[in-house]
């Protein structure tokens, strides 16, 4: 029950997940240690996004176990709110709250959920906006920001909750090519600060650069995994080879 930092921060074991008759995850296992950055890659429809959405209980699982800091996620009595305070998530479509300014978006959860003091929250929110290099955009509404800027606000919003793990669900997939770089840089900064990150991504160059470990999924299973150098250069499985040859 008691979790210590030398154990995996996120431990996924034999997870099965179906939508109706369609089995999306067919027994997936992986571990993420504290401070580690892992990237999950694979063709679309292979269950990557579903997997990380299970980690913060946006999707439930039918079988298997997901533990976040020792807490079992696949438990009907799970306190989802407590889990989600520890696990931040950034989405492909940013999903900023359009009726709030950038700084208000960042402040909302600490104020309303954690009930923190307003002046402290605002100070921290402004610091976070500075950290994602958006100084001067504090009072802009999401509609006035570019995709890359919105996504960085979304990252700041998630960080404001002081999560232990961050989930990134294809966060650059909806962006214009010229703004992809600024979002990746922000994630890289985070990784260098020691944040534990699980990324679903199609940015192979980025995965190679920042990931400690790469997982390749196809049709609901992990086909192959390893550190970036060996994964990209010495892929053994034919499916991995085929995927990499298509994408690189």
């Amino acid at each position, binding site marked *: 029950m008691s979790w210590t930092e030398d154990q995996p921060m996120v431990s996924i074991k034999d997870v099965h997940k179906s939508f109706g008759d369609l089995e999306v995850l067919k027994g997936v296992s992986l571990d993420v240690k504290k401070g580690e950055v892992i990237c999950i890659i694979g063709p679309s429809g292979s269950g990557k996004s579903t997997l990380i959405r299970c980690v913060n209980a946006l999707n439930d699982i039918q079988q298997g176990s997901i533990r976040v800091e020792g807490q079992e996620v696949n438990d009907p009595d799970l306190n989802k709110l407590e889990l989600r305070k520890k696990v931040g998530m950034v989405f492909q*479509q940013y999903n900023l709250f359009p009726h709030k300014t950038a700084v208000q978006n960042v402040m909302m959860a600490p104020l309303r959920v954690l009930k923190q003091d307003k002046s402290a929250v605002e100070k921290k929110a402004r610091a976070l906006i500075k950290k994602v290099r958006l100084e001067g955009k504090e009072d802009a509404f999401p509609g006035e920001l570019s995709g890359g800027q919105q996504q960085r606000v979304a990252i700041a919003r998630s960080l404001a909750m002081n999560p232990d793990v961050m989930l990134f669900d294809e966060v650059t997939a909806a962006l214009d090519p010229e703004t992809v770089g600024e979002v990746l840089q922000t994630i890289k900064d985070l990784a260098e600060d020691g944040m534990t990150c699980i990324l679903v991504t199609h940015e192979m160059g980025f995965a190679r650069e920042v990931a400690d470990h790469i997982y390749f999924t196809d049709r609901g299973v992990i086909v192959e995994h390893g550190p970036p150098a060996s994964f990209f250069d010495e892929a053994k499985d034919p499916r991995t080879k085929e995927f990499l040859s298509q994408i690189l």
Partner: protein
Amino acid sequence: MKHTSAQSILPVLLQGKGKALNGFDFSPKLWHGVILLAVCLLTSTISFAQSAPAKISVIDALFRWMPLLLQGFVFNLVISVFAMAIGTASGAALGLGQISPNVAIRKVCWFVTQFFRNSPWLVLLFFAMFLLPFEFSVFGLKIPLPDWLKATVGLSLPVMANVSEIVRGAVNSLPSGQWEAAESLAFSRRQTLWEIILPQCVKRMLPPWMNLYAILTMATVLASIVGVSEVMTLTGQALAAEGGRTDLLAPFYSFVLLIFFIYCYPIARWTVYLEQKFAVKG
């Protein structure tokens, strides 16, 4: 003498309307109003030309009854405001019930909404008139329930059902990503709904809500059928008091049409304006 007074009024009214025209673009609805005004005046003058000299002119008759008719119209507005308030409050609750995570609540609210939304307004009005008591007692205190209040409750029923659908529709029209983002920031369902979803829905709900109000205002004349002294009832009484002169029918009812138009048209324009404004921002 009578002629000159009628003629002196005509240009004044037309001039005023002409000024208003400059501010708006010519939409079919505005033409509708202009035509109404023309019909009102035309029927007045034609009727006047046909009437025997012993009777007072149509214009004079209209002016004599105008204060009473306007009073009746204000009563229509009072009914519309109360019915809208009751309907909005109960409809908002019903609409939120329709999106409740509890299946039983959701089904009951859905059924109630569909039942009242698909019933004729007049039937609901009769339903309220005959089912509600004329008075009810609270702790031995007898509180009377006058007809107009019963009619208000009757009219608020379809409003409630329509507001319920407006709320449900607005909530469902938001992208699911808003819910997911809030959930992943550890907002509870209640917080998500009240602090993130509903504030965004207000804008989307406002135009259809105003539209509904305009429809309700026009429907308040139904209360005349159940004997409430609103503008239609009073018009009938005024016509009877003038001895049932057939030449007065068209001008009097045109006048009623006109005041409803003057009240409802700006609401319709404003609704269109808001729809356009919100459509740009998304």
